[in-house]
């Protein structure tokens, strides 16, 4: 079946097996391996991407269901050499260790802050419920997201 999507601003069109998951399509067909796979029961969130700005676990969607969608993966977040404020905050606050959960965690955080630009700690923790990290104990992830929320809008936008 044919699927046509925009990924990080670039158009892609491919023939895929109907059962191809979006995460496999992004990784194996489009060649963007930054989106990771951590489970087979849609429990871990490692595969989180943005579809139309909203976070979606890309292992829960078939590639063909995403036909026509505008997708952002971790590779599309930084502006050239300039990290996105959430990426920057993750680095500043040591919110990653092995980095395997990180692409999904960052995408989830970006979407969380888009919906709620000034969250409380409890809201951040609840908002991240679908994203598991085995390394950091979440302490610094939560700290980083709260810090990113405080970055003035103009510097985040520029």
């Amino acid at each position: 079946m044919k699927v046509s999507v925009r990924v990080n601003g670039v158009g892609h069109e491919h023939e895929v097996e109907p059962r191809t998951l979006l995460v496999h399509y992004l990784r194996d067909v489009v060649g963007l391996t930054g989106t990771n796979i951590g489970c087979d029961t849609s429990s871990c969130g490692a595969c989180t991407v943005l579809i139309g700005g909203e976070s979606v676990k890309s292992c829960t969607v078939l590639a063909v269901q995403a036909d026509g969608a505008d997708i952002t993966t971790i590779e599309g977040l930084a502006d050239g050499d300039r990290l996105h404020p959430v990426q920057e905050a993750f680095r500043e606050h040591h919110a990653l260790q092995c980095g395997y959960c990180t692409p999904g965690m960052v995408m989830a955080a970006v979407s969380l802050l888009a919906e709620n630009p000034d969250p409380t700690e409890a809201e951040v923790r609840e908002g991240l419920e679908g994203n598991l990290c085995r390394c950091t104990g979440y302490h610094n992830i939560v700290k980083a997201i709260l810090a990113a929320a405080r970055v003035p809008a103009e510097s985040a936008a520029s």
Partner: protein
Amino acid sequence: MTAVEVPPRVVGTRLRRREDPALLTGEARFVADLTVPGTLHAAIVRSPVAHARIRSVDLAPALALPGVVAAYTGEDLQGDWAATLPCAWPVTADMKSPAHRPLAVGTVNYVGDAVAVVLAESEYAAHDAAEAVVVDYDPLAAVLDLEDAASDRVLVHEDLGTNVSYTWELSPDPDAVERAFAEAAHTVSGRYVQQRLLPSAMEPRGVLVVPHPFGGDFTVYSATQIPHILRVMLAVTVGVPETSLRVVAPSVGGGFGSKLNVYAEEALALALARKTRKPVRWIEERSEQAVSTIHGRGQIQHIDLAADAGGRITAVRVRLLADMGAYLQLVTPGVPLLGAFLYTGVYDVGAYSFSCTSVFTTKTPTDAYRGAGRPEATYAIERAIDALAREMDLDPAEIRRRNFIPADRFPYDSVAGLVFDSGNYVAALDRCLEIAGYEELRADQARRREEGDPRQIGLGLSSYVEMCGLAPSRVLASLNYSAGGWEAATVRVLPTGKVQVVTGTSPHGQGHETSWSMIAADRLGISPGDVEVLHSDTAVAPYGMDTYGSRSLAVGGTAVYLATERVIDKARRIAAHQLEAAEEDVRLVAGQFQVQGSPDRAMPLAAVAFEAFTAHNLPEGMEPNLEASSHFDPPNFTFPFGTHLAVVEVDTETGAARLLRYVAVDDCGNQINPLIVEGQVHGGIVQGAAQALWEEASYDDDGNLVSTTLADYLVPSAAEVPTFETDSTVTPSPTNPMGVKGVGEAGTIAAAPAVMNAIVDALSTHGVSDIDMPASPQRICRAIQEVRP
């Protein structure tokens, strides 16, 4: 060693990690991200039954599917192995170890045991084909309960004649133990169950073997913690010359011990790449991982304490029953031994005896999981000392104080035969209580008790010491471990003055590139940005003992330090020659070699490196280039310690337990990068707390693992845990020149007993004295009901 005076500049700062940009942008490459044209994808057919004879395996339906290239049974590959899968730790001379082939032959011994392998042109096709293979099993009885296994009622491996792999004892003076119990004013006994855990690194395992058919060489990319050990072991198991094997650990998504192994799939991928002359790739699925990757813990612990009238512990007696699972993996039998030396904890105890009986069951093999033996030991002694406090009606802080090894007794000869290098246990306890506001918390507890509040709070202390810096090679020899415990490093200054550090450690989240660059830069007086750190590739770093057991900094970091010192020595001789000064007059100050007393006579490191490179004008007899290596074998372990306090609220009506606060004061000696130290502590705490509250790999009566997915096996999310309150004390280690100790496992070691002590404390007025882990609402409710009159 030289007396180079370089003011400390970088070491001790919270330098942001150099690893992060690649990981934050998706640029980092994990093994599943690597693609090589023409790769064959492997899928494994696994046993759905716990114990059975294999009657027949029919590969034909799989081979008939599109895209399937080949399929093999265990019988088919019998001739492809030079040896069975390795166990490197035969703890006793008569230890029983079943033959462990990468694919089962004759019988299967646990759900998940590998029976056949399929190779196909795509991952989807390989998985379809694996499902199409038809295996006929003749079921045998499962062996699940440890006590039942020890009785030999049903044997896991008939040919061994017993389920007992070994019994190991450490009993320096049995009479002293007897005496202490005979004379004791108080005794307490505990039976604690260490449930099985799934290590659950977020990156599943995976391996890609790329053959170079005309040279007969292979590159093995594996999600492993141990590329160096893996290379040796694959050479031996698959029968490939070590010189033909290059092992690379690319970015690795966490390990926690689960990637400290030599797995069937790694051996299979290599053997099949040799057979097919094609690249072979296997990527583990999460629900496959639950059975195909080692489990942690799995012990029943009996601990008895004897104490005098003042509550001072006079003897500790421990009996363990340890679950090996169906086979012995790389260090399976050694895990209980790593704990054996620590059951007296942070306390000054005069008499001790330990014995461990390890048994086979029809379950996934166990092996090292974060802490490996040490969390188990700490759990037992910390639970038991709280029981003693309750028996004597003493505060848990007070009973610890009475028993701590005093700060002026270090180095301290422990009754188990170790020399604890340094410590100040009371300082860490005091700091922890101060941060927590212990008195106010006790007052809150008293108030809730008085009011009969259904939501009670409990305070759980855990004071721990661990042995890190694995390991002095001679000690490993005395424990029958088949390798040494040293670590290697090379430091080279390139012609432009940039520095390369080559390390034998293999990081998978610990940030060694950042920390090792700090160590070298600090000594050399240059920016860490000018130091490159190379690792995890046997072609680049030929020697190494890899990363596990909180060893990397204390052993590998020390090797970096020592190699840097050697480079500085040589550079100083070159500089003295160039500056026409006496060697002892030349000092390295902020990256410049200066002649003492005449600061204008100086040479930057880069200029010295260039002289070493051109070799135009070197001291007589000196070889060119600026490079030095160190192979550091530590003279002793290091002994980090600390005290943690968990504050848990227990709803006595619903049984729900909630972690309200968690205070951790750790002492890992001098810190290279406190940012990284704190991160290790945070992650460790959650893993330990998760054992106490949520995680359990449980089997049903037929031997099926029930919790195979992340929906059933409850790895906590951010919503379940609080923000932590951490601090540290600093007691440098005398074991190595940087005074460092290690911190990778501290949180996990301390947290499970802290949380469980808190839950029991919360319910002690209800008469509850023990609850098994994980303390689920059901278990808590049952415990309350059982003691209700």
